[in-house]
Structures are given as structure tokens and as C-alpha cells.
């Protein structure tokens, strides 16, 4: 009984989730002011043909800085974790 109820709820929710993109028109976003701004002014303001790169490295530069710092921190964490596993005499050739 409980399993059937869960299955019915799952089917209804999954169907609703799949129905939403089917009802929307492709390529017509609800809010496109910011996209239009980037497309119209990106090439003259950043002189880059690739608007995606212009957004990632220029308009949203702070986001990329955070990404780089996250990667750096991840590498530092991996280094710290594996450094503890090495023997003492293996430190000098690091």
C-alpha cells in the first residue's frame, strides 16, 4: 500500500517535471534583458568574440576567482591528506 502510494506520487511528480519544459517554447526565455545586454555590449566593452568567456572572466570575474581558490584549496587538501601517509624518509624528495 505504502509502496504503491509512493510510486503514484513519484509518477505524478516526474510527469509534472517533464511536462514543464514541454509546455515552454524553446529559445524564448522569460527574462532576457541581461542576455541581450551581454550580446549587444560584450564585444565593444571586452573586445572578446567569445561572450561566454567575456562573462566568466570579465563581467563575473569574482566568480572565477572563487573557482580558482576552491581548486587551489582542494589541491592543498589532497596534498595534506596524502603527505601524512608517506614515511619519514620520503619527505626530502617532495
Amino acid at each position, binding site marked *: 500500500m505504502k509502496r504503491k502510494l509512493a510510486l503514484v506520487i513519484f509518477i505524478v511528480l516526474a510527469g509534472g517535471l517533464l511536462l514543464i519544459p514541454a509546455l515552454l517554447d524553446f529559445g524564448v526565455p522569460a527574462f532576457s534583458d541581461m542576455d541581450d545586454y551581454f550580446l549587444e555590449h560584450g*564585444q*565593444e*566593452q*571586452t*573586445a*572578446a*568574440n*567569445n561572450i*561566454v*568567456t*567575456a562573462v*566568466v*572572466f*570579465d563581467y563575473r*570575474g*569574482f566568480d*572565477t*576567482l572563487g*573557482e*580558482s*581558490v576552491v*581548486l*587551489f584549496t*582542494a*589541491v592543498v587538501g*589532497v*596534498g595534506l591528506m*596524502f603527505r601524512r*601517509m608517506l614515511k619519514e624518509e620520503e619527505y626530502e*624528495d*617532495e
Partner: protein
Amino acid sequence: MRMSKLVRTGADLLYPFALIFGLYIVMHGHLTPGGGFQGGAVVATGAAIVIVAWAYEDVAGMIRKVTMKAQESAGLLLFIGSAALALGLGYAFFANVLANSGSLFGLSVPFGPNPGELNTAGLIPIMNFAVGIEVWGGLTIILLYLLSGLKKEEGT
């Protein structure tokens, strides 16, 4: 633990091409799809092929952890430094001071689709390069640390 001679030779042949292709993706980040993160990952994949095909001790002399650490730190410092360059010139942090300036990477581009020019986009290629060498160094260090555990294993 080495793989067969066929795999090792194939890895040796593939490594320079992976390097060139990754650096191409990094340096053309402002013109074509890709950029620093993707290109750095491609270069690290080339290093991964070599490390997996050869044993860790064979590679450790060529792909050194010290070099990769320095490269990663230099990438992050170059990224922050190029972002802070605008502060010294009186603009906001991350302002693209080199774009449309006529100097390094300073050419303008016309509006609309055009073939593109490598010498454009101001600070974006420099930041792409910085992120590229950072991802290269970082992922290679992770691979070296993870695969260095294989060196104690008995094998051919």
C-alpha cells in the same frame, strides 16, 4: 607498475599532442569554446596518460611535484595580480584595462560575427593563461599523489 611497451610508446607519442592541444584551448579561450579550466584539464589528461602507462618512479623525475606546485601557485598569483592591475591604475577590481587600449591584446573587434583576432580581449587571455597553468599544476599534483600509491605494488 608499468604497462606494456605498446601502451608506453603510445603514451609518449600522445603526450606532446595533448600538451599542444590543451595550450591551444587555453590561449584561444577568448575566440573559441573552452578556456583556462578546460585547457588545463586537457593538459592534465596528457600527464595522466603518461603516469598511468609508466610507473610512478619513472615519471617522478620528469613531472615533478615541486614544479607543479610552483606552477599552480604562480597561476593563482598571476590571476589575482592581473585582476589587481586595474586597482593600481585607478579602476575597479577586475576592470579590463587592456581591452581596446591598442597595446598588448588591445585590438578592438567589430560587432557581430567575425573571424576573430588573437590579439584582442585585453586581460582575458592573460587570465585564461593563469587559470590554465593553475588547473594544469593542480590536477597533475592530485594525479601524482593518488597514483604514487601504486609504487609499492608488485608487478611486471
